[in-house]
């Protein structure tokens, strides 16, 4: 039976996320200004939120009675604008890869560390075939020797190291296989690169590192399959969509409130002909938001139907990411324009949301990539379309 109602437990969790968001909002400007260089203005966890229950932890501990764990997680993301990610969330991507593909021995050695994931290189955005970092086996010492450069690595300067993707030595056909190694910060030959200064999402640390004859022992080599490493992105896409929708929701709420304060209330009953320009544009933006909400919820629902490791919801995951990415761009651009020059001021968070959320259509697969994936599935194409 088609149902869009939230369970009581859903509602509780959403309310929890909303409360945390309200607290975060108070610190959002400070986090934006002070973390330009990747340094948060306060230590984590922040005392303001330390007293509350982490909603995501609450979900992890008890998801009985929710619309399924994965749907509840997306709902909570949407309820939170993620303005300041004040909690030290345990989403270290590299650590997850270790956990999934590491041997017990490897887990024992690296399991207590927070590991980022090192894929992107300068000159190789979403295209793994452009990866130039490489590894060479030194039979004498039994070490691997790594060289190369990585960039756009989330939290590298905050975490302990990274699980990084490099090319191995050429096989008989001249192909260079992909290998995955654990590389630690501070290790000899690992060069530190300052955190990257960004337009938005400044509290999200992004950095690079260089590897110059970095020697790692054999145990640092994970047997993480390349395709499987990437498959991690699949179920992350609707969550990335949900995060973007959270920020868009803040923007829409702000716009609606300001319009109402000016005596422009939104009447959903009447026809388009009777609307003011501001009202008409806002309604169209709300419709776009609802569109993105629907495909995101559907992707999560399908994920629960077929199971997270399945590939059978990847098209839906791509759709949710692509529509939410478009919504993020359009809604923030349009809402500022509806409100006029005052909305540009740093006095309000609107301009920050505009900056923050622009990344939504780029990271974890740009809108163009998602469309290629969707179109391939529809047209039965593979490499013919790129």
């Amino acid at each position, binding site marked *: 039976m*088609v149902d*869009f109602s939230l369970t009581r437990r859903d509602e509780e969790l959403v309310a929890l996320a909303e409360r945390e968001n309200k607290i975060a909002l108070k610190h959002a400007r400070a986090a934006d200004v002070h973390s330009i260089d990747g340094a948060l203005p306060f230590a984590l966890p922040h005392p303001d939120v330390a007293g509350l229950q982490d909603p995501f932890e609450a979900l992890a501990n008890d998801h009985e009675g929710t619309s399924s764990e994965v749907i509840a997680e997306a709902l909570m993301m949407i309820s939170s604008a993620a303005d300041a990610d004040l909690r030290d969330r345990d989403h270290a991507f590299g650590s997850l890869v270790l956990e999934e593909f590491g041997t017990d021995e490897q887990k024992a050695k690296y399991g207590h560390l927070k590991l980022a994931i090192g894929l992107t290189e300068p000159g190789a955005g979403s295209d793994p075939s452009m990866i130039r970092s490489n590894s060479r086996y030194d039979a004498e010492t039994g070490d691997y020797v790594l060289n190369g450069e990585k960039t756009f690595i989330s939290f590298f300067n905050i975490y302990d190291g990274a699980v990084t993707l490099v090319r191995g030595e050429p096989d008989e056909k001249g192909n260079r296989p992909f290998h995955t190694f654990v590389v630690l910060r501070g290790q000899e030959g690992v060069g530190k690169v300052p955190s990257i200064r960004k337009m938005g999402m400044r509290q999200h640390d992004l950095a690079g590192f260089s590897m110059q004859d970095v020697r790692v022992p054999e145990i640092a080599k994970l047997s993480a399959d390349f395709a499987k490493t990437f498959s991690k992105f699949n179920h992350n896409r609707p969550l990335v969509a949900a995060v973007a929708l959270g920020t868009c929701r803040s923007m829409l709420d702000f716009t609606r409130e300001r319009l109402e304060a000016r005596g422009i209330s939104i009447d959903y009953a009447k026809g388009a002909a009777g609307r003011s320009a501001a009202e008409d544009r806002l309604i*169209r933006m*709300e419709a776009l938001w609802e*569109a993105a909400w629907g495909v995101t919820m*559907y992707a999560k629902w399908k994920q629960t139907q077929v199971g997270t490791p399945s590939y059978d919801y990847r098209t839906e995951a791509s759709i949710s990411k692509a529509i939410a990415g478009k919504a993020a761009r359009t809604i923030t651009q349009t809402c500022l324009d509806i409100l006029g020059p005052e909305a540009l001021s740093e006095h309000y968070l609107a301009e920050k949301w505009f900056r923050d959320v622009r990344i939504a259509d780029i990271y974890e697969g740009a809108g163009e990539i998602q469309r290629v994936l969707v*179109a391939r599935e529809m047209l039965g194409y593979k490499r013919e379309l790129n």
Partner: protein
Amino acid sequence: MISFELTEEQEIIRSTMREISRDALSPEARRHDLDGAIGTAVLDTIWQAGIVQAQADRESRSPVSNVLVLEELAAGDASVALAVGAASGFVQAVTDQGSEAQRAVFLASLEGDRFAAGTIAAMEPDFVGDVTRPATRVLRSEDGFTLSGRKTMVPLAAQSTHFLVIADLDGASDAFIVDASATGVTIEARQALGLRGLGLGEVNFDGVVLPTDARLGEGNGADVQRIIDGARVGLAAAMLGLSRAVMEHIIPYTKERVVHGSPLAQKQKIAFDIADMRMETDAIRWMTWKAAWALETGLDATRLAQLAYTYAGERVMQIADNGLQSMGGHGFVEEHPMEMWYRNARSLSMLESVAGV
């Protein structure tokens, strides 16, 4: 609990309608367009499927199911979908809001074997008009009402036995059941850009005398917004079906057509348009389901209905426009259904009250 799962019954409805649509509607859509009317046989087939009549059962009628029906029918012929939607809208309004007496009278007329139904007359021949603020007026008279005004884009205008007329009474929108043969009612065919099979017409009410029991519900007035909400959701469902028809036509077309050495579908512009068609039809579907679910569960559906309708209206036009473009000159000629869909898309997305769920 959030779920996108259809009931078994809904799955059956959907596949039955998909079959009817594919076998009986698609092949006739061009003929309906050229004739300016839906064939009687087609109307009767639909009637005999019992969709319209099913709306008379307050317990079992389901806006969600109706959305499925309209999507499928519109994928075959949007005119037929709206004919069904219009007749259903009339029955739904009477079922939901009619007095016992009204239900007894008007729902009895559903018993025949031939298509015979009422329709909603809400839009007016006025540029930049608003369906929620009718200029058509009902004045109270000694033993009833007098109705004056003009309605336009009334579906099946010449075939309907009754009109549910949305009119102003005492400064608020209200609904009145008017017999098509009443004195003062004149009907004029008014062909339009698209949905030509639907038999759109202009209906003039020139001081039509109505008995007290013509007022829907007979009591304190009808909830007109609920009718409009249902119609917006119905239109969104029809736009969804039309969008899907375009997409399903364009995929094989662009895969087969080779230009400059490769299939059209391998051009990034075309492939991205096709991806967008899929993305947008999915989005419209869930928005429409959500609004229908709100109607079904008795929640306030006005906002969700407006958003689904608005979004579907923007997208169906874009999908039809891009679909036509991807066919080049073939999109512009009657040999293919594309040009008809382009016209239907613009028409569908501008009507606000001709279907119901």
